[in-house]
């Protein structure tokens, strides 16, 4: 069976599985009334959370970045893992005690201000939309390869499918579907990794294989460094960016996590705080499986790529691969436009080098998907990876889109601007908002301001600069009042957006950037992706200063803030 | 043939046959326009038709008797109700004789199919064929035409069985086995029980059923012919 058919079949089966589970879950719940009432085990819930959490950025893009950036890209691992822990341990339990379901609701109530609520909604929409742009890139890559189309057409197809998935599916919230998605995703990620690790190092565990040796006895990482050096790239294990930038980058990924609506909600949909903690722990384990595999996938993929295009010694002319002899996967990816070869010196051979002489352009987001093909793994593995990529992109995109559409239809319209609208209009507004968000994200997906993981990093930065400080101060500083919070959020979001747009172009429109996006031009060497942490500090500072200058929050709010920090017996106040 | 079905409509195919065919009763049939499929169903004449046959295999079995009567403007007219026996070229198998009660010696005195077909075709001209499970009537007739004139029969058809299936669907009802038999369908519309297996009685039965089915159609607009036909 040829690869294309097999891919259709495997993707088809996984989709049928998700839908089947959704139907089964629905049907099951309408059964006997008294039979209901069994909970979902924290392990299962952890898997579902992990599926929610791991987006196209994690699945498709992260390993690609690691492949090309090496050690520097480990900030994603640290930032995202740390952010998850921060959210689970520090923020979620308090927010939960407050009894509010969404971040804007919390901010609106805590800062006793409709304005604060609206500003929070806007911040959330901006951050979530940016996040979806990142997913769109991943979806475009996955669909263009899977359907053997060029990237644009693949993206359009993906947009339509995401819309129907998010609107009709309602598959969000069905834990068992998400568990299935996690299983598909993790199998798709680890199985090729295991095969490749076995191929290269003989060790079935990619995490260990990374530190293992090749058949000729040289350790893999050493060999990789050597290859890269030969090709003129920086060494894989070397640190390339400034340490200051890396710290800020990591921080902004960490604290940005707290502002992303689709993750926070996971902590509220579990009945008990204790269960939430357990499932957060399990989720961390399940996320860890992918995250620890990612470096191995990245480095092995790069090694294989380099070996393929440069089978012989660099010095010799026929050491480089002849374009005529390029393998099938090369051709497939060429149709998507994400892999391009330009024969600059006219020798018909692919010179993959650092600098001007480079003839091969590889979009980093294709690495994970192309990985099994490069390694010449069996077709079904390749098909499985396509299904995994789609699962990752769809599950996260659907969650975020739902959050965006709810924010618009409920938080903005129903609760603020159009209180009397009927339920039908509310639903319609939600659908339109969702379609609008997809269209906007799709447009940006055509001109992505970076690789999937980088765009997602921008989203985290925006959330970090606007939402996180408002949440932190809402819980831990009773003196911060409504004006302070609103000013803080606006300052944080504003500065971060301006900084990002300065280097990435206004509204990400290519060519409108005021400064070239290179480390030399960055303010203090801070990359736009890392600026979220700075934005957050500005947010904190302005909020606290403004609050000091204006009236104290009302007494009942101050009591409320004290109450949620009291660890136990918060209900004692209302008991008598 | 099959692919042409999708490329040309019935009227176009009728014109095609008329041009191609030598002079024969079938050609006379084709020379009359088919009823306009967009006309109100009441403006159209139908011929309720039924045969008794030696069996159900349209390739080998033959027509033994033909009964038909006209449905015109919401009523079933009995003035041209016709019934005659046709002479089969084979012996009547006992299994079918039990059903329709036509015996060999009776059939022997009947019209040969060459004489019978023109009567039916001229009655059908300009009308819509109406039968219960019309595929059988249609195919037997078409095969007979091919055998005798060398060309197939085509024409618009209303099938009361198909209408009954639609009625079930539109009411979200499950169809049980036997529900679609002529007698069972008629009983649902409170139509009287008739003894089965006489070609004319069955034709009348199908005609009455058709009137009942149309009376039971929902919707303000009177149906058009194309809403009722299976082939048009």
């Amino acid at each position: 069976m040829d690869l294309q058919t097999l891919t259709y079949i495997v993707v088809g089966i996984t989709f049928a599985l998700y839908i089947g589970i959704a139907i089964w879950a629905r049907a099951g719940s309408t059964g006997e009334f008294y039979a209901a009432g069994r909970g979902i085990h924290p392990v299962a819930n952890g898997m579902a959370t992990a599926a929610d959490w791991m987006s196209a950025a994690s699945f498709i893009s992260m390993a690609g970045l690691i492949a090309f950036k090496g050690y520097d890209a480990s900030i994603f691992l640290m930032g995202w893992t740390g952010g998850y822990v921060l959210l689970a341990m520090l923020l979620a339990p308090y927010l939960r005690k407050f009894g509010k379901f969404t971040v804007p609701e919390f901010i609106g109530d805590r800062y006793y201000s409709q304005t604060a609520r609206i500003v929070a909604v806007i911040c959330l929409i901006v951050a979530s939309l940016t996040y979806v742009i990142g997913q769109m890139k991943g979806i475009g890559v996955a669909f263009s390869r899977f359907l053997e189309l060029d990237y644009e057409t693949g993206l359009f197809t993906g947009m339509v499918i995401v819309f129907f998935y998010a609107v009709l599916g309602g598959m969000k919230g069905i834990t068992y579907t998400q568990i299935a998605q996690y299983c598909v995703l993790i199998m798709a990620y680890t199985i090729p990794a295991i095969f490749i690790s076995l191929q290269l190092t003989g060790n079935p565990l990619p995490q260990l294989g990374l530190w293992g040796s090749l058949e000729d006895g040289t350790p893999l990482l050493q060999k990789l460094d050597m290859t890269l050096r030969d090709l003129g790239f920086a060494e894989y294990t070397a640190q390339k960016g400034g340490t200051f930038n890396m710290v800020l980058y990591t921080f902004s990924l960490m604290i940005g996590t707290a502002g992303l609506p689709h993750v926070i909600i996971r902590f509220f949909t579990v009945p008990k705080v204790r269960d939430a903690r357990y499932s957060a722990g399990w989720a961390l384990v399940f996320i860890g499986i992918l995250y620890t595999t990612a470096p191995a996938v990245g480095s092995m993929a790069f090694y294989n790529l380099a070996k393929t295009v440069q089978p012989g010694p660099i010095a010799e002319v026929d050491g480089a691969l002849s374009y005529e002899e390029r393998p099938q996967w090369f051709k497939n990816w060429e149709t998507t436009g994400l892999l391009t070869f330009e024969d600059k010196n006219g020798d018909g051979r692919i010179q993959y080098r650092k600098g001007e002489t480079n003839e091969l352009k590889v979009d980093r987001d294709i690495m994970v998907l192309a990985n099994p093909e490069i390694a010449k793994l069996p077709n079904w593995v390749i098909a499985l990876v396509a299904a995994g990529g789609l699962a990752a992109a769809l599950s996260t995109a659907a969650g975020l889109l739902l959050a965006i559409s709810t924010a618009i239809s409920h938080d903005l319209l129903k609760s603020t601007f159009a209180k009397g609208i009927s339920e039908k209009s509310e639903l319609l507004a939600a659908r339109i908002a969702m379609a609008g968000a997809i269209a906007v994200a799709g447009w940006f997906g055509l001109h992505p301001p970076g690789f999937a993981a980088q765009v997602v990093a921008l989203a985290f930065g925006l959330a970090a600069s606007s939402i996180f400080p408002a949440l932190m101060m809402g819980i831990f500083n009773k003196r911060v009042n409504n004006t302070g919070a609103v000013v803080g959020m606006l300052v944080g979001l504003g500065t971060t957006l301006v900084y990002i747009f300065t280097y990435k172009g206004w509204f990400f429109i290519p060519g409108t950037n005021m400064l070239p996006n290179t480390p030399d031009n960055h303010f203090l060497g801070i990359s736009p992706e890392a600026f979220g942490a700075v934005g957050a500090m500005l947010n904190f500072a302005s909020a606290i200063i403004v609050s000091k200058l204006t009236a104290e929050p009302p007494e009942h709010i101050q009591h409320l803030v004290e109450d949620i920090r009291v660890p136990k017996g918060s209900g004692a106040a209302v008991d008598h | 043939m099959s692919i042409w079905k999708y490329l040309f409509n019935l009227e176009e195919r009728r014109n095609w046959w008329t041009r191609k065919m030598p002079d024969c009763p079938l050609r006379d049939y084709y020379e009359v326009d088919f009823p306009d499929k967009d006309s109100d169903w009441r403006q159209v004449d139908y011929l309720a038709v039924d045969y008794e046959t030696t069996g159900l295999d349209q390739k080998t079995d033959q027509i033994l008797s033909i009964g038909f009567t006209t449905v015109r403007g919401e009523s079933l007219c009995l003035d041209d109700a016709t019934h005659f026996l046709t002479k089969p070229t084979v012996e009547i198998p006992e299994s079918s004789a039990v059903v329709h009660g036509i015996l060999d010696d009776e059939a022997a005195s009947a019209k040969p199919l060459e004489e019978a077909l023109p009567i039916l075709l001229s009655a059908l001209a300009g009308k819509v064929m109406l039968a219960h499970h019309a595929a059988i009537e249609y195919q037997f007739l078409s095969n007979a035409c091919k055998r005798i004139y060398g060309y197939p029969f085509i024409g618009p058809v209303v099938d009361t069985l198909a209408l009954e299936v639609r009625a079930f669907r539109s009411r979200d009802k499950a169809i049980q086995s036997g529900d679609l038999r002529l007698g069972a369908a008629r009983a649902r519309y409170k139509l009287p029980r008739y003894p089965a297996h006489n070609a004319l009685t069955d034709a009348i039965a199908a005609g009455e059923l058709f009137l009942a089915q149309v009376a039971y159609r929902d919707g303000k607009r009177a149906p058009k012919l194309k809403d009722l036909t299976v082939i048009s």
Partner: protein
Amino acid sequence: MDIELLEIRDFLVAHHPFDQLPEDALNALPAKLQIRYFRRDASIPENGDLESELYLIRTGAVELHDGEDLLARLGEGDVFGYRTAAVEGAGDHNVSAIEDTLVYQLPAKEVDDLCNRYPPFAYFFRGKSGGRLRDAFATLGQEDNSQANQMTVPISEIISKSPITMLPSATIRETAEMMSGKRVSSMLIVDEKESLVGIVTDRDLRSQVVAKGLDYNLPISEIMTHDPLTADIGDYAFEAQLLMARQNIHHLPVTQEGKVAGMLTATDLTKHHTTSAVYLVSDIFKQTEIERMQEISAKVPQLLLSLASADATADSAGHVITAVTDAITTRLLQLAEERLGAPPVPYAWIAAGSQGRNEQTAKSDQDNCMIIDDSYDPAKHGEYFRDLARFVCDGLDACGYIYCPGEMMAITDQWRQPLRTWKEYFRKWIDQPEPKALMLTCVFFDLRCVYGEQNLFRDVRQFLLQKTRGNRIFLAHMAGNALSHQPPLGFFRNFVLIKGGEHDHTFDLKHTGIVPIVDLARVYALASGSEAVNTMDRLDVVAKGGEVSEDGARNLHDALEFISGLRIEHQAGQIRVGDKPDNYMSPDALSNFERNQLKDAFAVVRTMQNVLSQRYQR
């Protein structure tokens, strides 16, 4: 003629006047006929011109009307149309099919032709047909009874007492003595042949005798109302009720084949309808034995039946039937207290679930609990309350309110607790909305105090509403729970039916029709902190709370009314034919119109669920 039209010929020959025709005319007749089919309620013919054809009914039935007045009902084998009306002397009349009808029609000129040629045939069209029509009316009228029976109750089912009668020669005094002796407010006056000649009521005695100072020894015939209006014992109760309302009379003699069969009073009728619950209730409070209460509660299905007959709204039916349950509960508690002594500490008996919401129907199990004052000491008082709960719950079970399969009853130790424990329960359910807790909320968030110390109940209610109001995390969980039962409406607006098993090809009106609305209303009510528990009340109240739009609430209200109405009709139908009432309805049992309306109702529920799902991202 074709011998094959024999079937039609045979039908003709079996029916007058065609049986008068000679063989050859008969044989030629079928070819002259046209056959037409008319759907029920269609007029025959469409243009109303009856004079151009003679119609013979092959199957079905028709009604002949002259304007408003019913002239006749005709059935199979009857003729109408050309020449028949003139003889009736009724002038213009119109005919409509009351059943699906197949007719043979014969053109007027053929009829004339036959009449000219065959005098016996023509004779039919002269004069004698009046009686024939009347016969047809009589027979059809009776047949019709059986069908209409399903809609209403005949008088015979309401009157029970054998009639008390006097002869016209009896004196006024004798009559009055008899009336007071038998405790009746009216007396029928009959002659020796038991046929009715008059009626005397209390009011006649007052206005004719006492007020005018008439001699008590005059015969009663002096003051009686002669030849009063009567009803036949086969008439429907509602017809009698209409007659009485129209004539402003309160007593209606009932006759059977011309003889007096009884007396129908306004009280009989009202007793039979909604107010019959009041009688049941007052009856209940007179009882001291559970066995007697059992007999009374066995009448609940009949009560539902009469409510359905009286076209009571589902909402009022729910209230009425729940009132009976409340009465039985209260009476059982009174009896228990008589037996066990006064309660050592105050307590409140709480109805939960459908009883709490005032939404019971014929088939209900018991959901209840007990809130005891905080001074409750399990060691000292535990036994008393356990016995109390056991007595009441057993009593309810004996009365047909079977034990709750989820054990949500006061008999379960867990649900017979002091106030503080209840508050602890609610705190836990609200703070940790586990599936089990959410399941319980469906029952224990719909509470109503039936008996005992109201303040205990108010305390709990206030506590829980305070905790739920605006608690969006809890509400999100409730919303998730409210979405677990979805209306049986497919993607293409088709019904999704249960396949296989005992209830093949049906849908569950309760769990997929009513429960989703009840659940939605509960979420809305808890979100706005409303005290209402009845679903209709909740929907009326919450529209102001902002959780749901006014339009949305009204639509849900209408949808619930419609679906519960269907359920009551469905159950009443089952009770009538002696089946156990259930909630499984086949779409085949509905008319097309009802089906569409039901789909609309389900679609409303689906929209509201989608909004909830969208808002809480469940």
